[in-house]
């Protein structure tokens, strides 16, 4: 028998960081992936409980560790949240088609995230910053429901220092929030970019993606250059279980990153349109 593609390999949780009240970032070691592309995902197993797909949020240049930001939602995510540093969990991957880093070379880049949707974009930001000379301007528009739900807040300063044009917004302000209040589409016009030649990558809740795509086109971004990472239930990650099969496409194989034109072809429900 060849390698069992359904069997995860055990790794250790070496660090758990509270990211927001409902989300933690888990650092796993060792990194068993020879390489991965930003935007790819892995299947994580809590032994005895279950398995689910998660975007890798760490840098592809970090050869020692893998990171995942996980929101407490169902049985697997709750079990991961219950875990302690030092515990063993299972990992397999990397799977899927990530962000189009080759097509982005030499062009300016806009990343649009909502809530935990920043996780796969963080991996991309770290990739871009590592290869800054290969890319043009890098702008990020990021929104969350409230300031306390903004992910990776402690990294923003570093991103800005390294040249990221970062724009933040929250649906509802709280505490000492002095930034923009409103959904992420209200700040999409802030980055000053050559819109016709900018590659846009977005990830967030389906309803956010729908309105972001609409707004981007209104603002003059080219449909040819727009990509989104979509979300689906998965049981295998390798195109066999059927759960992420929509209109002839497997989110696990053909996605999770899809081009604007490909999303138009997807059936209603999974398509953001």
């Amino acid at each position, binding site marked *: 028998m060849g390698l069992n593609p359904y069997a995860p390999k055990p790794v250790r949780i070496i660090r758990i960081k509270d990211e927001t009240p409902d989300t933690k970032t888990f650092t796993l070691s060792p990194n068993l992936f020879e390489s991965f592309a930003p935007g790819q995902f892995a299947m994580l197993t809590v032994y*005895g409980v279950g398995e689910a797909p998660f975007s890798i949020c760490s840098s592809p240049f970090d050869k020692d560790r893998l990171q995942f930001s996980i929101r407490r939602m169902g*049985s697997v995510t709750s079990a991961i949240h219950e875990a302690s540093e030092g515990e063993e969990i299972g990992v397999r991957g990397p799977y899927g088609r990530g962000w189009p880093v080759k097509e982005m070379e030499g062009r300016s880049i806009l990343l649009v995230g909502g809530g935990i949707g920043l996780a796969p974009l963080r991996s991309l930001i770290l990739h871009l910053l590592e290869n800054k000379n290969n890319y043009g301007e890098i702008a990020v528009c990021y929104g969350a429901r409230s300031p306390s739900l903004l992910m990776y807040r402690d990294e923003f300063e570093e991103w800005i220092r390294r040249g990221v044009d970062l724009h933040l917004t929250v649906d509802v302000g709280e505490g000492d929030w002095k930034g923009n209040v409103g959904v992420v589409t209200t700040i999409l016009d802030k980055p000053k970019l050559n819109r016709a030649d900018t590659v846009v990558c977005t990830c967030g809740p*389906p309803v956010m993606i729908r309105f972001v795509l609409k707004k981007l086109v209104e603002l003059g971004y080219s449909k040819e250059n727009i990509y989104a990472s979509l979300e689906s239930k998965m049981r295998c990650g390798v195109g*066999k279980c059927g759960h992420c*099969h929509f209109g002839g496409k497997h989110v696990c194989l053909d996605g999770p990153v899809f081009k604007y034109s490909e999303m138009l072809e997807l059936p209603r429900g999974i398509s953001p349109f």
Partner: protein
Amino acid sequence: MLFLSEDGFKRLLNGLVSSRNVIAPVEANGYFDFKTIKHAGEAFLDYSNTRLPPKRFFLPQREIVFKHDPKTGVLHEPALGSEAVLLGVRPCDASALSVLDNILLKPPNPDPLYESRRRSITVISLSCAKPREECFCNVFETGPVRGSGEDITLTRITGGLLVEVRSGRGQILIDGFASLFEEAGAQHLEEYEELSRRLTKEMSSRIEIARERLVRLEETLDEKFFQNEAQKCVECSLCSFACPVCYCFDTEDYLEKNVYVRAKGWDTCASPVFTRMASGLDPRPSKVDRFCHRFCHKLSRIPMAFNAYGCVGCGRCVSLCPAGVDIREVLKRWG
């Protein structure tokens, strides 16, 4: 093509049963079902078709995917397929295996459990003599005489059987009983051709579909018709579980005797929770969309990807559906 006399067939059966694990249709409780047989006489080869397809010998309803011992860190791989002969499979069900091969053996991640069973089980098909009323294999050319996933095709003709070797695995089995076979004569081939023509014509008079239109299914989707059909569906999943092609699976993790186990088992896109995520988001929340997905996947998406249909016309879903959903009506709508 080879010829096997009635007496030769008896001797082949005896030889197989005494030397191998043989699975064949047997009669039980008024149904036909595939079972391991100990004596050649148990095989009931004059059946129309089995109540359930032989899919479970390749994709068991439930199977262990891995076991992980947290103390030793040892990963126990699942049990692989053991050598067997699956005898008396109808051509439609054998053809379903070649559809599954396309999907489940597709690189770069072939399903190792399916692959090992596919390698270790020799499939011998038996042509239909009397297709049932609900059969429509003629639509997909997956029968009634010759399928596409078998290792050996047997067809009953006067005085014995016509034998067509379809694979290397089939040839190895035949070689082990070489003295029983003789070259088929012209009259044998003529009878075979005549049978094939007659049955296909008979079935075509009941249903005939212009298949090339099926791949355009989604573009020409008649929502109203689908809404009406979907309303009948009670979401019992019988159609998928009785389908020789349906392969979707779910997984289950648990702790057993201090060892972590993952099992996988049949699932179905007809289920209301099939695409529902932990967040409650569901990209396919309506029954009509699930209903459309099932038919479009079989009749349009699989053919676009693999040049084979996801339906082989066995008719089981037609006869088993408690609500009277009939895939032939869907076919007629677009054919």
